[in-house]
């Protein structure tokens, strides 16, 4: 199938490989619709990747929480008889501690934008401290619950409780290690001069871990 070549007069035929003009400003569009060239991304790589990491994590916890809800709804009595009650009040206060750590993390972000290194380090330290307090209180409550007889193998109540809360605690530990590394870098003067990708990523992850907790608190402790 050969089609006769119709060309507007006066337009030289392009010879491949000889002369390539510089890229046109609209991204080299030969259609009439001129979309912007994908040169200035809306979000930088680090933030984009964090959004996808967090969406994957949401699916992970989605699996755990929905499995928990299935068992919770199909159980005849919840909590099952002869099982210890969960410490609602202490954990409620602990929830506030964790939420406060998100606040200090936001404040650290403001310090970063001002270029205030001392305030940045101080606020990151406060965030890490609040996270550590949360973990310590959780750990203390766990040891008490175990001594009351609620264990991983004591039926579906203990199994779901320790798996869900433990999965979250593991994420807090991971976020805390990450934050410690970022904190060490910030103390040495990194980030304030502009390249704050690792810090921003860590902050996003921290906010995710904090935001996840109230959902678990309501689902596991209150509902």
């Amino acid at each position, binding site marked *: 199938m050969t089609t006769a070549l119709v060309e507007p007069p006066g337009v030289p035929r392009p010879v491949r490989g000889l002369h390539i003009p510089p890229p046109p400003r609209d991204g080299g569009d030969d259609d009439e619709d001129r979309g912007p060239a994908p040169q200035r991304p809306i979000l930088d790589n680090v933030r984009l990747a964090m959004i996808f990491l967090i969406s994957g994590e949401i699916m992970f916890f989605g699996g755990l929480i929905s499995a928990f809800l299935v068992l919770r709804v199909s159980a005849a009595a919840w909590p099952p008889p002869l099982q210890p009650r969960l410490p609602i009040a202490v954990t409620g206060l602990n929830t506030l501690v964790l939420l406060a750590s998100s606040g200090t993390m936001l404040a650290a972000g403001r310090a970063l934008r001002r270029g205030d290194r001392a305030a940045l380090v101080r606020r990151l330290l406060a965030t890490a401290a609040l996270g550590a307090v949360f973990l310590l209180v959780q750990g203390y409550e766990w040891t008490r619950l175990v001594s009351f007889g609620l264990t991983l193998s004591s039926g*579906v109540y203990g199994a779901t409780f320790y798996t869900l809360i433990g999965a979250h605690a593991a994420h807090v530990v991971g976020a805390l290690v990450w934050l410690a590394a970022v904190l060490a870098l910030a103390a040495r003067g990194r980030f304030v001069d502009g390249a704050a990708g690792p810090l921003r990523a860590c902050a996003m992850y921290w906010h995710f871990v904090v935001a996840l907790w109230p959902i678990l608190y309501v689902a596991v402790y209150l509902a």
Partner: protein
Amino acid sequence: MSATSATAHAHVEHHELGFLRTYVFSTDHKMIGRQFLFLGLLMMILGGALALVVRWQLAWPETPVPGLGLILRETGGILEPSTYNMAFTMHATIMIFFVVMPILAGGFGNFLIPLMIGARDMAFPFLNMLSFWVAVVAGILMLAGFFVEGGHAAAGWTSYAPLAAVPEYTGVNWGQNLWCISLFILGVSSMMGSINYITTIINMRAPGMKLFRMPLVIWSLFITAVLLLLALPVLTSGVAMLLFDRWLGTSWFRPSGGGEPLLWQHLFWYFGHPEVYILILPAMGIGSEILPVFARKPIFGYHAMAFSMIAIAFLSWIVYGHHMFVSGMNPALGMAFTVTTMIIAVPSAIKTFNWLGTLWGGRIRLTVPMLNALAFVSMFVIGGLSGIFMASTPVDIYIQDTYYIVAHIHYVVFGGSIFGAFAGIYYWFPKMFGRMTSPVLGQLHFWPTFFFFNLTFFPMHILGVGGHMRRIYNPMQYEFLQPLQWWNVLITIGAIGLGIAQIPFVINFFWSLFAGRKAPVNPWNATTLEWTAPSPPPHLNWGPTLPTVYRGPYEYSAPESTDDFLPQTTPPVARAGARRH
């Protein structure tokens, strides 16, 4: 951030890296892609051997399997029921998680994405390296399961609870534990990989590479990465619960402690159905790349192809219940799952007809990659059509858990994914390794593979309709299956032939790797960006300037071209001239 540092790198040029940094702990996407390819091909030997062991037992039950006497000394090479269960479980596990996923998503994903969108590397090269080595750790743990006491996992690749949740039921303890741990770790690796793919495709395209100028294989890998990102964590949470049930005495899936065995099936198939599309979508992309090149025609319905892949990916989330029609399900819900499953046939048919439309009237060149791509299309049609039978509840009740489903899955995953992988390997081998493969050996590989593939898997439909259950140890124990036994013998002969037919591929692969003809930059006269880089592309892929994209990826037989094709980097003839769309 990484993008700018990669560009800055380009001007430094060639600082020599040591052997370890070049070949082992490389952060170059091309090397990581090759590593994934080798990982998958190596594991394919093991997965294939396990399949042959299973086939031998089904054709000549309880006779010594040749060569197996060296491993199974106590029985002299005769398969016991427990070993048989282990063999089919691990065949599927290895083929799905360590062959098809590493080759298609890992190998081609890593190698092609930066090259075809015009980037110098992935967005996060170090993370990319990590994702490969974490996958290797997962593979080693999976292989370790063969050497622990009690043998490897034996509850099917689906590991249904409570069979898999209680060690005493199968007698397998650490094998199943390692299965869970390995898949958990593989989930981490897949997450790192998919985040990298998505970020790279969204943010790092070359100037002018608009979303709808991306080659369809990049679209398919993009959608696969989204599915991987969102589906695999659900499996990860599931295997964590399963492991806790086995190990720590929790009772997620154990009725004795108040758990719910059916819950596992929901979690597993919520991952499992998107997984099927994770396995097939990259092959669809590869097919869409190769057919236009060797038909010398633009792909038929580019936008329809991209949107139908998006539709398939979306629908894959709401059909998983069709794996559980007989597990116990509200009939109304079963009806809903039947309908959603049938709807998937629509985008799949759009793709198939578009492939046919691409071929229609083309100047078809039957090269080895083209033959494999054509096999992919035709075998995928058979696999897709048999899927419709299973989607319909009234039919499924009779053919579920028979060899019909075994035939279906193999027509999709071998006929679709593996033929797609072969097509891709033959097509991109010149770019990957800088040398051409031998077309004679390629033909010698393709034709026997195609013949024995059909000899192996087509009769399984007949066996399935005849009521031959899947996963049974000895079909001769059932009186109604004895007249069908000759089919089993025929299938096994086909399977052995299929195994032997891979020998020319292995020879071709290694011979071409070292002694093949040096590949030119663009051996197939293709239009996409990877063919503008040298073969094989150097570190950072292009010289100081990145290619600029001016047009779509499939401009073959273009009237305004002096040859019959216009590479994506060819500037337009005249800005005010005639429009093409």
